[in-house]
């Protein structure tokens, strides 16, 4: 399966799981939950039959709860099977006789069984099991993508079964009444209690996402403002709202829309407001309104608060920058009594306003006049045209040159990028891709960009923050949303001009590229993790890559991926050879722009950010270290291999034999850390540091796992026949055979450190 196919399958899986999660959010019966569950599996794996057995009060006794498809023979209602002895989640029936009691699985061509476990409902709920028999061939193999899908599906179902549904199962004495089970009372699907604030936060995002979906098929300006006002009224329980939009002259506002019950006098069609406060005051009540006469009139009409929408760029806090401009719109709001806002209300309005004003910003002028008063627009006109890449003021003068190429596939897009400057001069860069296109995705990207900015600016974040931590925090935001249905792929990195370092983490996005003009290849910078918003405890590997003065970093979304063929990469390298560094940056940006403007059959948003240090010394590749942090999961080993590939490609004296020795033993040391240090639990971190000095390469592999009492005498020598048939110990043995130095430091409960050293002997670079 090609990488692209596996990625597409993974994306389809995620969308399917999201749809399933959404359908489980009502008050489903147990029947509905398991119906959906089994149908999902049947569709995914093209099964002819599937059967679900659930553990009863006796742990070895399972009851047939649900089955679908056609079976060659009758399924028994009850089977005796010790599922607790199962060692893996999915097993082939022929490997585990315990799964085939009385031959029932064999007779019915059920080749595999999947153990589903969840915690029963309520305090002290018991661990429960179910067996799902899959109608697959007896020698079926499950790919990595299949395994990830099953894990995610397992979690989705487990969440649905915790709480009230699980309590019902716990009380079951007679499964024959399974079809009559109806959920009683409210479903407490989440184990943790939600505070009112958290619930309102979740509803904020849910409401904003509802808006996003409403705009899927295109939107007019009138739609935007109608939705805006109705959303405010619903969310804040307003009786009435009135929207005044900017017109000419700049201090004038014209009534565009009003909704709700009008009380008292009619609203003025127009108002002139020259003395509105500066941008940092986003709302006013009528008591502080600068025009007391108008304030009195609006108050008499039942409006007590006005919220100001600013479309234009903010004024710089130091007073530099563009002069204060008038708000683009005034939103008068009235409720049953004087309005007061909770922090969550304010947060909601801020995010909603950012979303709306971002859309307004994207509206191009009808000609070349630039931003115009909103009243000048035809309110029936559709949102149009794309956002052209703008130079980011935050990077100017910071020792980093950059270019951005951005082209949404529709009028607006689901990609976004952002820059964050930190006190030490480093710069954070984010490139992200929301699954989807058009207005829906564009609105969601606004919310995500705001959350990302909030995260990196937290006091606890550190300055600069660790990229992997940033992704984990953003993932937590997405997971906590009750109705999160839009996964996000993202790369977040920090460019440090002082240390010539790029530290980054990515989730579900193509690897960033390092273009070194005088090299013969473009390096991929590996670091990986699943899309954000899929798993609550997702981990992300973080890597640091040294960068030199002429190096160009290219971070991009998958809209560009089909065009980045091997031929294109060779062509880019040829073209930048011998160019000045800034010329190279422009040249690559031009090439990307050509690709972006080229329409493809399966068109997607395209975003590419190019970065180059403008002041780093043009030195030879340093002997400075490279580091990668990997979650303790063998599925991240491909990232390790690419990391080692890139590191060793920089060293000019690595022979094929040295390459084999270093990569083989490093991977073994990492696998040992995962399997023995962390017992294959994926919540740990394995750190790999590679450095080169005086012709000697060192690899240090460290974990904070359980450690052990290391005795060098215990390393097998594989000298006698009995030892030669051992299934363990070869890794350590081969380290000592292949490397010039092996130092292992470990103590129980204190983690393990393995230092491997190799004197580099070869004069030629590693062969292709």
């Amino acid at each position: 399966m090609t990488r692209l196919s596996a990625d597409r399958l993974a994306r389809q899986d995620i969308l399917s799981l999201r749809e399933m999660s959404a359908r489980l959010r009502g008050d489903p019966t147990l029947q509905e939950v398991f119906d959906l569950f089994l149908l999902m599996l049947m569709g995914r794996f093209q099964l002819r039959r599937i059967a679900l057995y659930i553990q009863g009060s006796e742990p070895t006794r399972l009851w047939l709860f649900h089955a679908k498809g056609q079976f060659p023979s009758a399924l028994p209602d009850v089977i005796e099977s010790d599922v607790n002895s199962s060692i893996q989640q999915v097993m082939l029936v022929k490997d585990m006789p315990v799964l085939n009691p009385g031959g029932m699985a064999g007779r019915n061509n059920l080749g595999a069984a999947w153990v589903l476990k969840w915690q029963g409902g309520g305090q002290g709920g018991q661990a429960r099991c179910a067996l799902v028999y899959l109608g697959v061939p007896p020698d079926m193999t499950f790919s990595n993508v299949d395994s990830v899908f099953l894990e995610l599906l397992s979690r989705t179902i487990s969440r649905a079964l915790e709480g009230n549904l699980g309590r019902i199962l716990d009380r079951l004495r007679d499964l024959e009444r399974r079809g009559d089970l109806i959920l009683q009372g409210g479903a407490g699907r989440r184990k943790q209690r939600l505070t009112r604030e958290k619930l309102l936060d979740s509803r904020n995002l849910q409401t904003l996402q509802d808006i996003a979906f409403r705009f899927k098929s295109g939107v007019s300006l009138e739609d935007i403002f109608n939705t805006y006002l109705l959303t405010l009224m619903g969310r804040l329980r307003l009786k009435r709202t009135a929207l005044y939009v900017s017109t000419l002259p700049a201090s004038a506002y014209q009534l565009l829309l009003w909704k709700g019950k009008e009380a008292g006098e009619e609203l003025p069609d127009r108002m002139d407001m020259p003395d509105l406060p500066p941008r940092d005051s986003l709302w006013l009540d009528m008591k502080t309104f600068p025009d007391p006469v108008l304030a009195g009139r609006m108050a008499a009409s039942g409006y007590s608060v006005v919220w100001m929408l600013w479309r234009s760029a903010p004024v710089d806090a130091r007073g530099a920058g563009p002069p204060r401009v008038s708000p683009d719109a005034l939103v008068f709001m009235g409720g049953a009594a004087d309005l007061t806002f909770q922090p969550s209300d304010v947060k909601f309005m801020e995010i909603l306003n950012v979303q709306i004003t971002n859309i307004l910003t994207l509206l191009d002028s009808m000609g070349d006049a630039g931003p115009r008063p909103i009243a000048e627009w035809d309110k029936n006109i559709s949102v149009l045209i794309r956002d052209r890449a703008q130079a980011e003021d935050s990077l100017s003068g910071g020792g980093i040159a950059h270019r951005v190429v951005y082209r949404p596939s529709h009028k607006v897009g689901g990609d976004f990028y952002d820059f964050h400057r930190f006190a030490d001069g480093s710069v954070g860069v984010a490139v992200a891709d929301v699954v989807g296109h058009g207005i829906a995705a564009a609105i969601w990207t606004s919310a995500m960009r705001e959350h990302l900015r909030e995260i990196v600016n937290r006091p606890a974040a550190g300055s600069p923050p660790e990229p992997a931590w940033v992704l984990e925090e953003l993932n937590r935001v997405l997971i906590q949303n009750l109705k999160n249905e839009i996964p996000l792929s993202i790369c977040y990195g920090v460019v440090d001009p002082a240390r010539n370092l790029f530290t980054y983490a990515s989730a579900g996005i193509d690897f960033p590229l390092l273009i070194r003009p005088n090299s013969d290849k473009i390096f991929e910078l590996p670091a990986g993790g699943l899309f954000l918003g899929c798993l609550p405890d997702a981990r992300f590997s973080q890597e640091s890559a040294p960068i030199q003065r002429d190096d160009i970093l290219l971070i991009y979304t998958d809209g560009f991926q089909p065009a980045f063929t091997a031929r294109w990469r060779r062509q880019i390298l040829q073209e930048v050879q011998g160019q000045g560094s800034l010329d190279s940056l422009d040249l690559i940006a031009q090439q990307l722009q050509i690709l972006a403007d080229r329409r493809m059959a399966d068109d997607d948003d395209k975003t590419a950010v190019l970065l180059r240090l403008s002041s780093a010394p043009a030195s030879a590749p340093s002997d400075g270290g490279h580091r990668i942090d990997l979650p303790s999961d063998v599925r991240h080993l491909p990232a390790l291999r690419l990391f080692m590939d890139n590191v060793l490609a920089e060293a000019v004296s690595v022979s094929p034999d040295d390459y084999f020795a270093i990569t083989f033993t490093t991977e073994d040391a990492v696998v040992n850390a995962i399997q023995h240090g962390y017992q294959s639990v994926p919540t740990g971190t394995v750190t790999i540091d590679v450095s080169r000095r005086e012709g000697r390469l060192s690899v240090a592999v460290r974990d904070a796992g359980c450690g052990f009492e290391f005795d060098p005498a215990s390393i097998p020598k594989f000298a006698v026949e009995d030892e030669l048939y051992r299934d363990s110990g070869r890794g350590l043995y081969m380290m000592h055979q292949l490397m010039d130095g092996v130092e292992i430091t470990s103590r129980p409960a204190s983690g393990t450190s393995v230092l491997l050293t190799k004197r580099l002997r070869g004069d030629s670079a590693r062969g292709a």
Partner: protein
Amino acid sequence: MALDLEPLGETSGILRVGGDVRPENIEGYRKKLYEVCEQKNYILHIDMTGVEHLSSWAIGVTALAAQKIRQNGGDLKIYAAGENLKRILKFSRLEMIIDSGGTAPPSGS
């Protein structure tokens, strides 16, 4: 990794591995090998065409499989190993217990 078992008769067969055996995909390799090794008097030929890498874990699994199959009266052989794989078999000393220099068995053997 394909892991295709082609029977050559009732008591022999070719296991075509088809790709590298690494920690991420070793379970299938292990299961297939151990399943075959349970059979009595079975001669298993492992076709390593296209295999550039065996992790040390996979090496250990292969060694144990060889022991099991021989205890059951059969044998295990490797063929079509490339240079990279031969280097691994040499440094791991697996070549001391498993013949890896042979050729593909004739069909029906």
